[in-house]
């Protein structure tokens, strides 16, 4: 959209930021940057990162100063496995919204996931020095997972900062543990996800992540139940085919009707 900004339409250059679209129906939320950020978050926590990225991009297009949208973009790129692109986009984000602890943490996350641990540790240190917060501690915990250190301590810190009721923190912790891809880290993920599920039991996203973790732990029946819960709570969500396939009963279970 940026390339259309400097077009001179009807002889007058566009002088101000584009106004958000006027609600067509009374009562509808105004479609400003925050609206698209919320939509992006919604997709993000459903693990639909492409859609989330689109929404965050719309938010950035509407308000370039929306730090949350930039964060979401970089996070979504990282989750999509496009670490190099995330690093490039970090440069743009810093130019616009300035270097924040969260942005540094995401940079550390991208570096850690590429296996560049020296840089990751440096960025993580910087992010903690720049003020810390929930996300820097979660990223620190993920880096600790790779170095077999006490990651749970960092996750506890992040949980304490976010408040016990914040299900998003538990989600991010669990997804970080899931990405570390070991049975031990999956157990750690469960340790943080289950309390959040007790408090925010209406969140289908948590059940979706729970299903993934239990698949990692080879508990197919439990994963299937979690997916059923997820489907019941998020009626508009289409469960990915690979998840359905992974939780489907195996040959012997089908043979004996169990």
């Amino acid at each position: 959209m940026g390339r259309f900004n400097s077009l001179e339409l009807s002889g007058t250059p566009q002088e101000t930021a584009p106004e958000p679209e006027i609600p067509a129906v009374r009562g509808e939320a105004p479609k400003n940057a925050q609206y698209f950020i919320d939509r992006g978050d919604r997709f993000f926590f459903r693990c639909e990162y492409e859609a989330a990225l689109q929404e965050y991009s719309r938010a950035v297009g509407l308000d370039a100063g929306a730090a949350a949208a930039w964060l979401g973009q970089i996070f979504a790129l990282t989750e999509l496995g496009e670490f190099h692109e995330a690093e490039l986009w970090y440069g743009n984000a810093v130019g616009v919204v300035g270097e924040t602890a969260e942005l540094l943490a995401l940079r550390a996350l991208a570096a850690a996931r590429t296996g560049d641990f020296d840089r990751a540790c440096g960025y993580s240190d910087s992010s903690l020095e720049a003020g810390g917060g929930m996300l820097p501690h979660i990223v620190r915990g993920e880096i600790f997972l790779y170095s077999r250190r006490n990651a749970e301590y960092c996750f506890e810190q992040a949980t304490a900062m976010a408040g016990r009721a914040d299900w998003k923190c538990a989600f991010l912790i669990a997804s970080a543990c899931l990405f570390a891809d070991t049975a031990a880290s999956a157990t750690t993920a469960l340790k943080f996800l289950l309390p959040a599920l007790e408090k925010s039991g209406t969140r289908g996203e948590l059940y979706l992540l729970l299903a993934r973790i239990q698949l990692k732990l080879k508990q197919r029946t439990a994963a299937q139940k979690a997916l059923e819960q997820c489907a019941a709570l998020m009626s508009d969500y289409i469960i990915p085919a690979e998840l359905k396939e992974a939780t489907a009963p195996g040959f012997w279970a089908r043979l004996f009707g169990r």
Partner: protein
Amino acid sequence: MKSCPRCSFGNFDHVVNCVKCGASLSAPERVSIDPNPPRAKRKHPFREWVQRFRRRRGFRWSEPSEQERLEQDPGLSWDFKLNLFLPGFYQFRHDRVPLGIFCLGLVLGGLICSWLMVGTGLAFFMMPCAVAGYVMSIYDANGGAVLRPFFSATSSARLRIEWWTLLPDLLLPGFFQFRKGRYVRGAIYLGIFLAGWVLFCYAIGTLYTAWALAVAAMGPALSLCDMFRFAAWPFRQRLLFTVLLSFFSFQIFHQSYFRIADAALDQAAYTTIGMEFAGTDLHPGEWAVETTNPPDPAPGDIVRLRIQGFVYGAGEFFDRLLAGPGDVVSISDGRLQVNGKPAEILPLNDRYRLPNLPELTLGKDEFLIYPSAAQRGNGHLWTRNYAVINRSQITGRLESIHFPFWRRRSLVNRRNPEYIAPEPHSEQE
């Protein structure tokens, strides 16, 4: 007058856009930002694999700096101070009993042995043992709380080394691993050990026995390295200790096995053919039956000879008797003539160039012999004084080779296999 925010050009008040650069003069220009991030053009499976591998392998967190170490140091405790006078005491108190025994044993053993061996050269080697035990004890006591474990296997309680099984743990490869339920690696270490000894038995009588024993020594050395992994140490120290441990334990096991095997072979009362006989009729490592003081040595026999007087590099050697009592011998241009004919019997090493010898007749009980395999270098040619020997100098004779089985043969009076007898008609001419 309006100044352009972009190029600072002064424009008239009624002008909407700058006449120089075209920028809007009424409002600040918005920064043009493409809100869409760059995207990857394609998947990179290999790159992803490498990244996953790196994440799986993980990394070691950077070590704390020396300053942090010092800050963590709790100071010297009373048992550390007592340990200065009684090495091993700190280890006994802090659940590192094997190390305590080891240090105390080294110190006491070193002191006592050096006292008993005063006046011998060994006393010089005993004192460093005592010092090493003392230093090890102090070193461990100084950083033991921070750097533990030094002597215990790992920080895991499951893999702790119990001191009462230390000896079999050290000596029997795989013993520790089987005790701790690590059956696969235990079987691997034991398998390497057994494979080495089987190879050794197969290679007896060849040059490869040392290599086979090296394979056998790898079993217990690997087992030791698995026991002592220095898990709580910083990476560089851990690497250093592991390298040192593997190197020295391998050397010790290799040497021990070599000596054990050598002693066992000596028990069999065979004479083992040495390395210097490579390339002759004999093969290094063969087991030969030897008769001491043979009553009737004859040309062609391989005899053990004791040199009278000092000869550099050869006090005693085996070689073949070239001529016997009453023979007329001469050597010219490296060719031996016996009784006016080219010799049928040549030294063991056929590449040995015989030194010139004027014609002479061997007297009673006199033999001609050259140390073709044992002599080192060409600096000292074997003189007539040494080449003509008396019967009393012959102390033994090799009768036959018994091992390896596939090379069993008699050695008595064997002619030179490369000798070509002159044809009868040439004699008539």
